């Protein structure tokens, strides 16, 4: 697998063996790194899915079954804290497990914050003010689904893509395929945290038993959609996949975003004004869990194939 091509801007020791992957050439160290299995990727995200569901169930049961009620500023503060919890669970789980060769905290937090900033600065104004989807949807299921994909899905997923693609993607710290999923999930959780805060502040506090369902549902869904885009970015960083690879990633994430958002709206309706947010929580948890399991399964298989090819 020695390359005889002219090398340009990286020093390579004379006689060092080079490896090619997807049309790109790497040294042995680089090649092994990009295919390494990072235990801090899958574990924390799957822990977050489970822990967030447990958190939502506890809060819903405590505030739904008891007479304990918060009011005024306390309700608002509790809601804001609640909006941060899913992201906080992930960050704690991530940094607890990311010890071997940790991703820089500033990068992960930066992408998380950038996801939130893009949501408040571009995403939500575009969706709610320019397109005003809330004003013309709700009468026709097909129209609702198309709007959820073409407008909400594409706007949200492109911004999460941008939060990763135009920042950490160029960094040397983005050195494993799986980093795409980690940073994508960070952008998604940032976006979701901002959406949840807007929801809570906009309503001047919410019923905690109901609000926690929405907060956790939104966080799991947004993180898993962004994880898909992140997977495509992670692969594209190390392999030449052609011009349709990245658009395909954003499109799949946008379609899943639209379809799941649409389903979440449908499954909670019981008829009339009644709704049951538990159904949405179950759907979001299943979608997020399945998405991350599939993505990490694919990454693991890719990494194994990469290393096997190198050893052959």
């Amino acid at each position: 697998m020695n390359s005889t091509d002219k090398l340009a801007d990286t020093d390579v020791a004379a006689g060092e063996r080079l490896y090619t992957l997807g049309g790109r050439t790497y040294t042995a160290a680089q090649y092994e790194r990009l295919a390494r299995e990072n235990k801090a990727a899958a574990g924390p995200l799957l822990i977050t899915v489970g822990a967030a569901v447990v958190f939502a169930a506890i809060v819903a049961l405590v505030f739904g079954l008891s007479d304990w009620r918060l009011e005024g500023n306390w309700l608002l503060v509790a809601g804001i804290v609640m909006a941060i919890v899913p992201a906080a669970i992930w960050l704690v789980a991530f940094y607890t497990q990311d010890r071997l060769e940790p991703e820089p905290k500033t990068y992960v937090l930066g992408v998380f914050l950038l996801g939130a900033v893009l949501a408040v600065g571009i995403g939500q104004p575009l969706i709610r003010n320019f397109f005003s989807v809330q004003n013309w949807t709700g009468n026709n299921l097909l129209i609702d689904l198309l709007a959820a994909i073409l407008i909400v899905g594409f706007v949200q997923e492109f911004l999460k893509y941008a939060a990763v693609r135009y920042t950490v993607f160029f960094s040397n710290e983005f050195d494993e395929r799986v980093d795409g999923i980690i940073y994508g999930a960070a952008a998604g959780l940032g976006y979701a945290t901002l959406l949840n805060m807007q929801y809570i502040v906009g309503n001047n506090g919410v019923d905690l038993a109901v609000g926690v369902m929405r907060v956790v549902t939104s966080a799991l869904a947004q993180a898993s959609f962004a994880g898909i885009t992140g997977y495509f970015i992670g692969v594209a960083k190390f392999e030449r996949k052609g011009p349709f690879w990245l658009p395909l990633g954003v499109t799949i994430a946008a379609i899943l975003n639209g379809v799941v958002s649409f389903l979440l709206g449908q499954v909670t309706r019981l008829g009339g004004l009644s709704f049951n947010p538990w159904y949405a929580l179950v759907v979001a948890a299943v979608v997020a869990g399945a998405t991350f399991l599939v993505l990490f399964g694919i990454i693991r298989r890719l990494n194994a194939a990469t290393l096997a090819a190198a050893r052959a």
Partner: protein
Amino acid sequence: MINANANAAVAPVRREEGEPEWMVWVTVAVALVLGFFLMWYITNQTTAASAGGTTLSYPATWVQTSESGAAFAVADLRNGGTFGDRAAVFELPKAELLPRDGGLQEAAANYTLAQQDARVGYRVLSVHSLTVQNRDAIQIESGYLLDSPYGGTSMPALMHGIDTIVMSGDTFYVLSYATRAGDVDNATSANDKLVNNWRLP
């Protein structure tokens, strides 16, 4: 076994171009353009309904409501909530607005007197003549307070009303449009659309 240097940065050792970026932008742009056309199609869609011998075309996103004395009433509850844009068609016997002889001016004067009793804080802002489907008509712009359906302890809204009165045979037809006060241009434009699509007997 590969010799790995833990500190080596992973970047292709050859100077290479990344994946073409413009395709992502094109894909998202195409999706948003399609979304824009979807929005345009839905928001410009109208529904027609017969109302007291007339036919009124109104935005498809509006919903039918009820209004005292109206043959037909619709409102944009989704966009504007309880105080959203609203339109109602009234069918009034000629004798109700013109007990004695007179024309549209007298009918308009009697209509405003009746509205002062029916609406809280009713004030006439302007009265002007126009033509609706080649028939003489008169339009009354007004301001009034609309109470919340949630009861007297809720804040009322200041509404901008535009009532168009047309006589056909022995009947006066009134198309009454109202929106929250503040955006005169939008109110005029929305009312003009309704009046232009209002079919009289």
